C-alpha cells in the first residue's frame, strides 16, 4: 500500500469511527441516513450524495469495518432495482437536483424502486419499446404497458424507458425517466408465473403525467442511459463464487446421500457430470474474482449467467427424475406475491419450474450467446434491418 493509500485507509477508518460514535446502530433508518451523510454509503459517489469521490475498491474496507461493529446495512434483496440499477444511473446521468432528490431516500430504503423497461413487444429487443411519452408544457404524458416488473406493488418510484420520437430509428427515439408509481394512471397488476406465484407485475400507464424534472438524461438519449443501467445489472448477475456443492447441486447431492433407495445406478454418471460442471463453474468464478483483483477482468463474467441457467435447469430436471414420487408432488399452487425469491428453496417441482426463468430473465441465453460471440469472440454481428429506418415504419 502506498503512503497515499495509507492516508485514505486511515481517513476512512476515522470516518467510520466517528459515524459509529455519533449514531445508534440500533436505529436502522437513522443510522443509514447518517452513513449517507458521512459519505460512506458508496464511497465512489460524489461528495454530498452519499460518497467521497474515491475509487470503488475502498468500499470494501468501509463495509468490513461497519459489519464488524454490527451496523445495519441496506438489504440488497429489499431494494435491488434501486440500489443496483437506479442509483448508479442517477449518479452518472442525473443533475445535482435529481441526485439530491432521489439518492438519499433510495439509500435508506424509504423509497423503493422498480423497473419499467420490458414490454410485451420489447423483450430481448428493449429498444423496441412502444410506450409513448409526449411533452406537454413542462410535463410528459406517458401511455403504454410494461411487464416483468418485480416489486411494483411496493415501489414508490421506477426507472422508465419510453419512446418520445417515433420518426427516427428506434434507438434514437427513446428517453429515460423516473416514474412516480403513485401518480394517477399507474395501474399495477400481479402477473402469475408457471410456479403459481406472481413474482412480477404488469404495469399499465394511462395518461400518467410526469414533471420534466423526472427526465434522466437528454431527450432521445434514453438508449445510452438504459444501456448503462443494464450493464450494472449484468455485473450484479455475474455473481460471486460460493463454497463447493452449494445451491441446486447441494439439493440433489443431499437427496442422493439421504435416500439410498432412490439411487438408480444408471443415474450416477449424470449426477457426477452435473457435480463436475458445477465445480468447474465454481472454480471459474474463483478465477474471475482473482483476475478482477489483479486488475485483469476476464470476459468470462458475461458467460456466468449463461452457465448458471443451463446448470440450474439440468440439475433441477434431474432432481425430479431422481426423487420419483416426491418429484411428482408440488407444495403450493396458490397465487401470491412472494416477499423473497429463493430459487433453490421450496420443493423440487418449484425449483424445476423457477429455473426455467433463469435463461430468460435479465437477458435470454440466446442473447447472451450473441453477446459473447460478437463482443468477446469478435464474430460478425447479426444482420440488422431495424437500425436505420424510422421506428414507426418497422414491421411489428
Amino acid at each position: 500500500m502506498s503512503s497515499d493509500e495509507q492516508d485514505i485507509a486511515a481517513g476512512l477508518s476515522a470516518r467510520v469511527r466517528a459515524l459509529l460514535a455519533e449514531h445508534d446502530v440500533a436505529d436502522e433508518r437513522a443510522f443509514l441516513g447518517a452513513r449517507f451523510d458521512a459519505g460512506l454509503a458508496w464511497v465512489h459517489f460524489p461528495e454530498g450524495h452519499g460518497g467521497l469521490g474515491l475509487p470503488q475498491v475502498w468500499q470494501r474496507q468501509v463495509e468490513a469495518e461497519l459489519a464488524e461493529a454490527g451496523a445495519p446495512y441496506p438489504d440488497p434483496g429489499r431494494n435491488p432495482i434501486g440500489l443496483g440499477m437506479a442509483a448508479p444511473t442517477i449518479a452518472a446521468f442525473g443533475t445535482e437536483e435529481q441526485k439530491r432528490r432521489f439518492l438519499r431516500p433510495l439509500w435508506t430504503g424509504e423509497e423503493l424502486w422498480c423497473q419499467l423497461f420490458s414490454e410485451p413487444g420489447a423483450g430481448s429487443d428493449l429498444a423496441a419499446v412502444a410506450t409513448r411519452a409526449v411533452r406537454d408544457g413542462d410535463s410528459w404524458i406517458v401511455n403504454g404497458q410494461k411487464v416483468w416488473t418485480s416489486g411494483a406493488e411496493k415501489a414508490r418510484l421506477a426507472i422508465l424507458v419510453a419512446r418520445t420520437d417515433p420518426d427516427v430509428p428506434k434507438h434514437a427515439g427513446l428517453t429515460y425517466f423516473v416514474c412516480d408509481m403513485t401518480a394517477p394512471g399507474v395501474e399495477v397488476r400481479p402477473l402469475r408465473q408457471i410456479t403459481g406465484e406472481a413474482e412480477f407485475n404488469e404495469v399499465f400507464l394511462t395518461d400518467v403525467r410526469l414533471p420534466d424534472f423526472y427526465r434522466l438524461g437528454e431527450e432521445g438519449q434514453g438508449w445510452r442511459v438504459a444501456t448503462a443501467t443494464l450493464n450494472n445489472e449484468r455485473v450484479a448477475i455475474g455473481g460471486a463464487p460460493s463454497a463447493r456443492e452449494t445451491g441446486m447441486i447441494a439439493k440433489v447431492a443431499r437427496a442422493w446421500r439421504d435416500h439410498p433407495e432412490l439411487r438408480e445406478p444408471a443415474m450416477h454418471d449424470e449426477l457426477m457430470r452435473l457435480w463436475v460442471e458445477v465445480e468447474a463453474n465454481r472454480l471459474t468464478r474463483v478465477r474471475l474474482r482473482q483476475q478482477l483483483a489483479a486488475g485483469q477482468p476476464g470476459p468470462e463474467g458475461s458467460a456466468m449467467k449463461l452457465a448458471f441457467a443451463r446448470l440450474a435447469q439440468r440439475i433441477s430436471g434431474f432432481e425430479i427424475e431422481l426423487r420419483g414420487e416426491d418429484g411428482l408432488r408440488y407444495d403450493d399452487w396458490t397465487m401470491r406475491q412472494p416477499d423473497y425469491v429463493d430459487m433453490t428453496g421450496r420443493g423440487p417441482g418449484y425449483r424445476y419450474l423457477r429455473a426455467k426463468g433463469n435463461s430468460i430473465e435479465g437477458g435470454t441465453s440466446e442473447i447472451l450467446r450473441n453477446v459473447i460471440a460478437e463482443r468477446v469472440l469478435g464474430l460478425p454481428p447479426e444482420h440488422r434491418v431495424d437500425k436505420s429506418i424510422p421506428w414507426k415504419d418497422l414491421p411489428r
Partner: protein
Amino acid sequence: MTLLYSETEEFLRDSVRRLFADRCPPGAVAAAYDGAADFSGLWKSLAGDLGVAGLIVPESLGGAGASAREAAVVLEEIGRAVAPVPFLSSAVLATTALLEAGDTALLPALASGERTAALAVPLTSGPPTSGPPTSGPARHAAAVRHGDGGLTGRVTSVAGAAEADVLVVPVAGDDGLELRTVARDAPGLTVTPVLALDMTRPLADVEFAGTPSARVGPGEDAVARALLAGAALLASEQVGLARWCLETTLAYVKERRQFGRQIGSYQAIKHRLADLWLEVGQATAAARYAADTIARGDEDAEIAAAVAQAYCSDVAVHAAEECVQLHGGIGMTWEHPAHLYLKRAKADQLALGTPYHHRARLGDLVDLPAS
C-alpha cells in the same frame, strides 16, 4: 405391421380432437391447478358419447373390440390437449389388468363409460422385467395385503384414484399376487388427493384399513401386462404433447419479431427447431411401433415399449422446455398454456418408469447387461 395411421384411426382422432377443442381449451385445463375444476362431464362425453372407454375391450364384453393402436391415437390427442381425463388410468391400465385377470363383471360398465376404474399402483411403477433380470424388479411388489378383516395397506401416488368408482388393487395373497376390486365408497377406504406437479393427471394416496374387496383373478401377469401396455401407450401421449409444443413454437417464432426480424429467421433457433422436429418424427415412429406390438400381441412388445418410453419421455420434455424458452417471457406466464405442457411432460417422464429405468430394463431384454 404398419406404423402409419389407418383411416379409422384418423376418423377417431378427428372426433376426439373436436371434443377437446370444444370442451377443454387451455384456460379451462389450467383451472385444475386451483382446485376449481370438475372434468367429469368431459370424461363422460369422451368415454360414453365417443365410446373410447371401451376401445380395447372385446365386443363380447360391451367394448369396441378395437386395439391398442386406436387407444394410442386417443392418447396422442389427450397429450395434444393436455386433457384432464382418466383414459390412461381407467381405459388402459385398469382395463388391461381386468382383461388379463379374466374379469367379466366390471368391464362392461367400464367399456360403456358408466363407471371408471383406477389401478392402485404408484404412477411411477415401471413394467417388471420378464425373464431373469439384472436390473429392476421381476415382480410387482404389492403394498396391500388381504386378511380376514379385509384389505390393509397404503398405495401412494395413484393416478385417477379420486375420480374412480372402483379401485383395481394388486394384493399380496398366499399364492402370489391377486387382483381385487374395491368400490370407491367402501368402508375403510381413504383416498387423499395429492398436490401434484401435473394437476391434469390427478394423483391420490390410497389407504386401506379393513376394506372389503372382491377377487377378480390372479394378479402377477395382469399387473405386468397393464404396466407394459400403459408404458407403451403413454409414449403416444408424449408424442401428441411434443407435437403441440413444436407446432405452437413454430407458429410463434414465425410471428414474433425482435430486432426487426421474425425470431424464426435466426439460425440458432432454426437449427434447434430442425433438431426437435427430427426428434418428434422419430418419437412418432417409436410410439406407433410400441402400440402396434401391443395390439398384435407381438413378442417384441417389451423391447418396443422400453424403446418408446426411453425415447419419447425425453422428447416430450425437450419439446416442452423449448416451447417455454422460445416463447421467452410469455412462456413463463400462467396465462400461456405452455406451462401445462411442461408440467405434464415432466410428470409423464416419471410415469410408468423413468427413461433411466427403461434403458436399464432394455439392457436385460436385448442382452446388453449393465455389468
